[in-house]
């Protein structure tokens, strides 16, 4: 192969693929068959991290950045004047195998601009995956994009070779989608999602009866939403995410702070700041919903349509619901422990184990690793020294902010100054 030409294509098509934030390589269960190449064992591995701090786990590229659509938020939209390129199927296969053998990557994440039509594009993505699995005996991780509008037959085939499939909904509201991607229908996005969901359900049912049922997308499906491109509220985003988790059994919903890539009067101008803090708060909320037993309505509702910027969503919830506190860590159940600000699920697990042996005091809790600067206002333990002043929520917030530092502190202290 000609390295110079490949290098040029790789630069263009990796650059265009990087706005897809998903880089997960976990959750699959492919073992190495017949002394072949690779495996995928549930635990993802980040082989490197870019200078923006994001994980590099997969070779994430587009098949091509030619596209018939003109979605305003997308760098490869047809009206954008950029260099275009396309990989041949064999070139993607060779790159993947050679990177994988050197332990650079866990596998391939293949997406594409849409050329000709949805099925033609999807066919080529499937062809790469098929070649890797069948000709190269490759058992590493493969993440394929479901091209909006692709046929059910192709989605079925895609899932037989891929570990994960994803369609990016990109715009969290239907009205926003109409505004920014006028050529696309909402149904084009949901159709492949629905097909994949149903195939996974069917696979799981059949596997119980016939153990050799071929795997179908064992790492499930995911989607992504752009944050801050249209005027949506945090409530819109999280309610929409909840909808996808619930109705399409998504493994993950990703939130991607919008990076301006084009001058368009419908969108934030080029050079405007990427909403990193907001993105962070949304992920924190996502975690609360998936692992901490919160319901989305507890955190975001008509009275609180947006997340606090200065405190994390769990602390924000606690400050609005002081009647649940203080919690006795030696007696409370798992669900309530998980709601104490400053205590994560790892610490919950440790506390529940440790308190079987003795009553826990501040020293034990500190060694276990909970964030006492936040937690101490919301809990009691085996000690007479606990926060016994009757503090107002605002005062607690003030004390916590005063006695801690946060990675985004500088940003929102500037934001606050604007209004004071």
């Amino acid at each position: 192969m000609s390295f110079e030409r490949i290098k040029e294509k790789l630069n263009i098509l990796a650059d265009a693929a990087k706005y897809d934030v998903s880089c997960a390589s976990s959750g699959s269960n492919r073992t190495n068959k017949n002394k072949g190449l690779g495996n995928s064992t549930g635990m993802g591995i980040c082989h490197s991290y870019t200078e923006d701090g994001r994980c590099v786990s997969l070779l994430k590229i587009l098949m091509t950045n030619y596209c018939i659509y003109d979605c305003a938020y997308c760098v490869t939209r047809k009206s954008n004047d950029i260099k275009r390129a396309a990989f041949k199927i064999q070139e993607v296969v060779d790159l993947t195998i050679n990177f994988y053998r050197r332990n650079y990557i866990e596998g391939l994440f293949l997406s594409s601009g849409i050329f000709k039509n949805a099925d033609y594009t999807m066919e080529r993505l499937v062809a790469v995956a098929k070649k890797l699995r069948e000709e190269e005996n490759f058992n590493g991780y493969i993440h394929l994009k479901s091209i909006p509008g692709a046929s059910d037959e192709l989605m079925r085939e895609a899932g037989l070779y891929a570990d994960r499939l994803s369609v990016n909904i990109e715009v969290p509201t239907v009205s926003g989608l109409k505004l920014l991607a006028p050529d696309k229908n909402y149904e084009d996005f949901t159709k492949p999602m629905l097909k994949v969901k149903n195939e996974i359900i069917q696979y799981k049912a059949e596997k119980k009866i016939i153990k050799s049922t071929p795997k179908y997308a064992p790492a499930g499906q995911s989607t992504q939403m752009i944050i801050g491109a249209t005027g949506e509220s945090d409530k819109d985003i999280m309610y929409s995410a909840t909808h996808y988790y619930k109705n399409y059994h998504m493994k993950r919903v990703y939130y991607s702070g919008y990076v301006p890539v084009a001058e368009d009067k419908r969108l934030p101008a080029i050079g405007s700041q990427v909403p990193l803090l907001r993105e962070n708060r949304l992920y924190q909320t996502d975690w609360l919903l998936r692992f901490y037993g919160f319901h989305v309505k507890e955190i975001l509702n008509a009275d609180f349509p947006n997340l606090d910027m200065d405190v994390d969503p769990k602390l924000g919830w606690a400050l609005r619901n002081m009647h649940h506190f203080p919690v006795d860590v030696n007696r409370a159940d798992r669900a309530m422990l998980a709601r104490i600000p400053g205590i994560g699920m790892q610490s919950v697990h440790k506390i529940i184990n440790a308190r079987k042996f003795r009553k826990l005091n501040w020293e034990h809790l500190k060694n276990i690793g909970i964030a006492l600067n936040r937690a101490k206002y919301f809990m009691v333990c085996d000690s007479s020294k606990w926060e016994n002043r009757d503090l107002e929520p605002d005062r607690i917030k003030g004390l916590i902010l005063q006695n801690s530092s946060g990675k985004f502190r500088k940003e929102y202290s500037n934001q606050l100054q604007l209004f004071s």
Partner: protein
Amino acid sequence: MINSKILVYDGSFNGFLTAVFTAFDEKVSVSDIQREDEYQSGLFSESETVITDSEKAKRVWYGIDKKSHTAIKQIYFAFLSESRGIEMLLYRYIRKLFSKQDASPSDYSDGIVLKTSQLAKSVGREKHRMEAFVRFQLTKDGIYFANIEPDFNVLPLISKHFRSRYADQYWLIYDVKRKYGLYYDLKKVEIVTMDLKELLTNSIHKSETLTAAEYDFQDLWNNYFKSTNIKSRINLKLHQQHVPKRYWKYLSEKREVV
């Protein structure tokens, strides 16, 4: 103290377990357990050199494993941390496991248990890091070769991962600090020691031993690494937290910066 002894062992995990066996078997009051290459005689205690006996080691291993599978795993991981005084910490932990009815590796309010689990966790993290940071380079002999310099002695822990992943290629991972490596010949993994003169190469100082295409692939990878970065989101602090500087010289995408 009468009969207070320093037990000296060869530095291997089996050696350590043999020392534990000896301590229990001979009812020695142990004042310290030391590696023979770091042995310092104590003023008031005599010493006994323990000869590694895999049968005795096995009995201790299975004895602990029977008490708790998590405990033996944590003890092995923590031992590989090679941290100062690790032997006595683990010896106390093992005594606790055998003496107390309700001693458990999940008693995180106990100092010794917590410390051991934290050390095991650090070693586990380093193991995971090495599974990520190994960068194979293809030699003209057809061997995928990588140098590593892990904080802890994790080669024994990563062997299985690489064996099951790269089952169809010859590979060699060499620990520069501890001067030994693992070599896989398509059938089994062997421990090898060798004298490596030329350890680091890059596109400027090309090595004769590597294939020509190797540098092209490294170049492609380095290019990919650069193109996938989003400049408007730059966060070097986070970058360095995930990829600490001490590993850079072994990562082709970071090596040119070093």
